[in-house]
């Protein structure tokens, strides 16, 4: 009974950590440019698929991981340069949402041409030997995912609070005009934001590829769940996004375990609807007044 609960909890936290990473990608782009990037899930897919195909081509895992992350960063920067920047002046929420949706359909189509439509899996980073924790059984990859997420969050905190370029991004998020007045290149910040989001997406995609199959379509659900994490966190802080992701992951795992595995994917969206209806600003968001 207790072991079962722990099992669900651990797998929920693990999957939730990847939702959180995807959500952080959304969050960084949102902060840099006030765009919700619906192509965020495609970064996850590109990361996972590139790594799979590099490994298949004979590359050692670390090289494949680096290659996959670089590929996603490259795609992120291209997306910003070619699709977002030309349209930013219209700055209408609907318009920008639609551009990124178009980009995600395009990237998915591209992936199915460049690679294939099959399901793939990455070998586990350090074996499949199960680990027993108080009766719950997990594979080592779970530790990689949780550890990876923790390292990334720490690194991002350091970057945004201590490194000048990161501080410039934080400043731009608060007030783009003021940031420009003190000499921050807002265009560079935006480009960097998309690159970072590509990196986070790719890392999430690579970390989860050994325990979940990846395919050209894998980005849709992961992207949407990451968006859930973001909205649950209320677009407020990076920490809230990660917590939002873990809440979504745990709720999903518990729901699938105790209620109905068929409705697993629905659980995230039911939570998000309830939260939006009763707490329109998310769990951690501040109640703001609209400026007219």
């Amino acid at each position, binding site marked *: 009974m207790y072991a079962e609960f722990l099992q669900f909890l651990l797998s929920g936290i693990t999957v939730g950590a990847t939702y959180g990473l995807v959500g952080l990608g959304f969050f960084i782009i949102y902060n840099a440019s006030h765009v919700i990037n619906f192509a965020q899930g495609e970064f996850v897919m590109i990361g996972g698929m590139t790594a799979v195909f590099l490994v298949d081509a004979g590359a050692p895992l670390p090289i494949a991981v680096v290659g996959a992350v670089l590929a996603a960063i490259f795609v992120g920067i291209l997306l910003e340069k070619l699709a977002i920047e030309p349209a930013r002046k219209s700055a209408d929420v609907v318009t920008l949402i639609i551009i990124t949706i*178009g980009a995600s*359909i395009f990237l998915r189509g591209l992936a199915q041409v460049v690679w294939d439509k099959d399901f793939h899996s990455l070998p586990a980073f350090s074996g499949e030997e199960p680990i027993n924790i108080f009766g719950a059984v997990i594979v080592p990859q779970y530790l990689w995912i949780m550890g990876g997420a923790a390292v990334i969050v720490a690194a991002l905190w350091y970057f945004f609070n201590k490194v000048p370029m990161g501080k410039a991004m934080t400043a731009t998020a608060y007030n783009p005009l003021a940031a420009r007045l003190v000499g921050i290149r807002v265009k560079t910040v935006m480009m960097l934001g998309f690159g970072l989001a590509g990196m986070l997406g790719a890392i999430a995609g690579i970390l989860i590829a050994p325990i979940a199959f990846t395919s050209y379509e894998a980005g849709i659900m992961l992207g949407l769940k990451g968006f859930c994490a973001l909205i649950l966190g209320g677009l407020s802080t990076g920490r809230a996004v990660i917590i939002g992701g873990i809440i979504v992951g745990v709720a999903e795992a518990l729901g699938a375990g105790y209620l109905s595995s068929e409705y697993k994917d629905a659980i995230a969206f039911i939570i998000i609807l309830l939260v939006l209806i009763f707490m329109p600003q998310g769990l951690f968001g501040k109640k703001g007044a609209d400026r*007219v």
Partner: protein
Amino acid sequence: MTWLFNPRTGGLLVLAAVIALLPSILPNSFYFDIAIRVGLNAMVCIGLNLLIGYAGQISLGHAGFIGLGAYGSAILTGQFEWAPLTAMFFTAAMVALLAFFLGRPILKLKGHFLAMGTLGLGIIISIVLNTEAKWTGGPDGTMVNPLTLGSYEVYGEQVWYWVVGGVLLVSVWVALNIIESPIGRALRALHTSEVAAETCGVDVARYKLLIFVVSAVYASLAGSLLAHYGGFVTPVDADFLKSVELVTMVVLGGMASVYGAVIGAAILTVLPQLLTAFEDFEHMVLGLILMLTVIFLPKGLLPSLVARLKRKPKAEEVA
């Protein structure tokens, strides 16, 4: 030329003429089939455009309402042996009720939160349709009885063409009348600024909800017709990508333009047929079209075209 640009006289006449003359150039039933699908998609888009284009509220879940309409008709006529028209209108009424109760809290949201809310609603509907196999047949879908009016059975592409053509004309006419009525003015006002509209005495929440319900009913009716026409319905008709496709049609044709929605639906329904030879590239091309339109023609095809013809770039005047 001005009468031609008056949507309620010239526009409707042109559309009627196109619908009447099109069969003479359609070579076989394959093309009739495409035309029928254009008509049904156009119907959904006209409703969706009232919401997105006029009221400025995005919905990423409208395919869910198509699915509910389609499955409502399928289940009521199949398992309960209701008459198709009764089933169709009862389903539409139920969808309206659902949209009414869910729309109230969801439409309080703005921007990204609204996109998430409607997206979640659509995905939940699609998952339910996929899962409740006892009623819906699950992912494999279910058979649908043919559309009958009394003892007459609507059968064959040629007959269906006229049915859908007629329904489309009525849909356009109703939408144009809504836009020209005080409701339409209220919608445009709240699109520009909800606070300003509220200050002028417009009940913003009520009008947003009203148009959300109307657009859901449009989608439900089109879904019912689609189910009867195809004789088969699967959850694919209700999934997230279908919702995205609908939004694309509206944006491509032109937001806040009823005929634009029709044109957008026509292009994006016909295009995949033309691209079947390059099936693998279909998604790439669709995504590219979507991005390029929004970047270079943010007002959409028809309003941009009309603005150029009139040499007065005021898209607001185009309905």
